């Protein structure tokens, strides 16, 4: 009987493409706990799930409305991502966070047509920052180009304000993700006079001997990495093998988790990574997670990732989604939300220090405000460094804003190209 009932609900859920507003807030989690990217996918998915569990257990959901999180395994594979999107959108999904640039590219047209917002936090298509073109896509608080620009800024600081004649190598995942920063770095190399060399690494990235041989030969002053999954660990190991100085090697925020540096052990000491939120578990919210989630036996996954860099990022993503939902509830004066209302909430989202402190996350991330013109926040990024002896990351700079003079025209150009390509009239 129970089985039959479940069957019927599944059938119903599948048949009703645009399901009725249910008495739950549905947040799909397109996660990947298998495959070559699992080492990075698991902590993020755990953090994302645990924060929603916390809200359910402690506050009874968002604004009294319970949260239902549907997890769907994508394996970082676009085909499975499409399947996950189609199978969850009928359940009343409020926002998609696919944690994959490839899947984000797939979802941009689909989700726009279906009126469901996508939040690609720190990944996806950078020009989605332009909300007048990408109405349903958000990428606050920072994007790939912000990352590239702040990386160069940090190098400027370290090198006394000039990169003239320096050589910088970009080691990147040979996919839409890794190619994103190239255009920005090319512009920046013109502006600051450094020489850029590009070293693509093919999926999944286990084989990087030739790239690191080239680095050994060319001896670039700095290496920037846009890697993900197993590629990160291999790159850091290879860098250690050729004795490349770790403090001149910097990863984007997706190449800066504990799982990436630990395999290289002591040799990874000093490796730098960008981040757009704080690290560690020294925040009041973690006491609540321990009490309501871990001790209650409701932690997602193995429960061993709490407080790691990517766990915090998953938690941050869930927090931003929950805050946007609260904002949407306020705007529309309703508890149950539709994806369209959620979109309005995301576009009116305002993150202040007081708000974060109230959530038990003081000083966790930069303050920012989302508007129709700016779906991408302010591009504030900090640099963190790995301390192998202490086995922890620590922030070594404050949040710095990316070079808006360079980025703004690039974003406008790319957004205009997309608008022309897909027949969108930009407007707020």
């Amino acid at each position: 009987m129970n089985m039959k009932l479940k069957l019927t609900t599944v059938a119903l859920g599948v048949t009703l493409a645009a399901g009725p507003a249910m008495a739950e807030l549905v947040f799909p989690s397109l996660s990947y706990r298998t495959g070559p990217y699992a080492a990075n996918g698991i902590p993020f998915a755990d953090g994302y799930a645990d924060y929603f569990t916390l809200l359910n257990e402690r506050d009874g959901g968002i604004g009294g409305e319970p949260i239902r999180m549907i997890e769907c395994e994508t394996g970082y594979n676009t085909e499975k991502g499409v399947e996950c999107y189609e199978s969850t959108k009928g359940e009343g999904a409020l926002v998609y966070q696919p944690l994959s640039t490839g899947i984000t590219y797939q979802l941009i047209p689909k989700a726009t047509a279906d009126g469901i917002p996508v939040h690609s936090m720190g990944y996806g298509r950078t020009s989605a920052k332009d909300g007048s073109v990408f109405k349903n896509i958000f990428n606050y608080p920072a994007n790939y180009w912000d990352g590239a620009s702040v990386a160069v800024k940090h190098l400027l600081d370290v090198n006394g304000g000039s990169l003239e004649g320096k050589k910088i190598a970009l080691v990147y995942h040979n996919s839409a993700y890794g190619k994103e920063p190239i255009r920005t770095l090319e512009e920046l190399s013109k502006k600051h006079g450094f020489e850029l060399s590009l070293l693509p690494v093919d999926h999944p990235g286990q084989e990087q001997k030739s790239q690191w041989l080239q680095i050994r030969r060319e001896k670039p002053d700095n290496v920037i990495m846009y890697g993900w999954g197993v590629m990160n660990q291999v790159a850091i190991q290879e860098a250690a093998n050729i004795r490349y100085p770790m403090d001149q090697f910097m990863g984007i925020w997706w190449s800066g988790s504990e799982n990436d540096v630990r395999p290289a052990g002591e040799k990874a000491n000093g490796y730098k990574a960008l981040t757009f939120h704080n690290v560690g578990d020294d925040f009041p919210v973690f006491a609540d997670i321990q009490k309501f989630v871990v001790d209650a036996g409701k932690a997602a996954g193995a429960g061993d990732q709490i407080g790691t860099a990517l766990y915090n990022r998953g938690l941050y993503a869930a927090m931003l989604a929950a805050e946007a939902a609260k904002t949407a509830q306020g705007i529309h004066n309703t508890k149950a939300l539709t994806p369209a209302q959620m979109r309005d909430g995301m576009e009116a989202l305002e993150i202040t220090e007081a708000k974060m402190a109230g959530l038990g996350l003081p000083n966790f991330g930069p303050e920012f405000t989302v508007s129709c013109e700016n779906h991408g926040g302010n591009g504030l990024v900090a640099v963190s460094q790995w301390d192998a002896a202490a086995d922890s990351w620590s922030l070594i700079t404050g949040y710095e804003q990316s070079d808006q003079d360079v980025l703004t025209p690039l974003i406008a150009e790319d957004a205009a190209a997309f608008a022309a390509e897909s027949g969108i009239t930009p407007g707020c």
Partner: protein
Amino acid sequence: MLYRESGDFSSSYAEDSQTFPIKFDRYRYYFVLFIAIAVIPFMINDYWVNSLFLPFLIYAIAAIGLNILVGYCGQVSLGTGGFMAVGAYACYKLMTSFPDVSMLVHVLLSGLVTAAVGVLFGLPSLRIKGFYLAVATLAAQFFLVWLFNRVPWFYNYSASGQISAPERTFLGINITGANTQAWATYLFCLMFVIFSAYVARNLTRGSVGRKWMAIRDMDIAAEIIGVNPLRAKLTAFAVSSFFIGISGALFFAIYLGAVEVGEVFGIQKSFLVLFMIIIGGLGSIFGSFAGAAFLVLLPVVLKIVGVDWLGWPTDIVAHLQLVIVGGLIIVFLIAEPHGLAQLWRVAKEKLRLWPFPH
């Protein structure tokens, strides 16, 4: 009792040599066609189309294409992913260069472009055979993926290196892009599936197909009885690549909408399609469909059973999927090395005699 030849008289050569000589088979075929064309389009939504029907139909075309080459002509190929990529990129270039032309034309032209590329990479097959040819086609796979990653002209110099399908129409109906109707994309792909299966079936039982099979069975003997190996092998490569190109174009334009060549058309795609025809049955059109259905539908079914009904963690289900699909492949190949198509043939043979097998 129902399934038998007796009472079914043919009075012309055409009737005698038709694809489905048994009446029951013929009506079943018409029935399946009727359901596929006139019933399913009214019953499906986005989920059914994008998760099940489109991948099934498109992989079926690819499997038919590869089956012609491997199953009928005996030339092992590991370049399917690369040839699908040729179809996809040809379609993308055509779509963006000639926006007003119907999608039907674009997809067919992509097939022709792929056929030309396929012939080019088929040339080594004249000198090398078996595993060595497999390695040569593997080179095609890697070369083509590298090419589409490397030369910005193919992806119209986009920053991400991705290609994404703009909105294009067929008979005024949106077929690609985001604002498509489930039935429209389904019918569009179905049309190509029926076309491919029809053409492939009739090619393989005509003189062309007999030449391919002669080459497959023993190329020296075939040459002695007057089959031109150059022509036979290259036509097999051309026809096979034509279908694979069509499937690649549909895969990109209709199903995914945006494609990253290394991820979508990598070596694993070549293996997937090869597994489809091995499991389905080499040298059988039905086998291509059965293999595609097996490898496309089974993971989705397992996922629905494991995650949605039993509520298991997603990673456990994903790992179980590998175990179960892998196990089933082994079981099938041990129990029936000639694939699902052979099982089907045996079942039909038994049915014909039923209920008096002796």
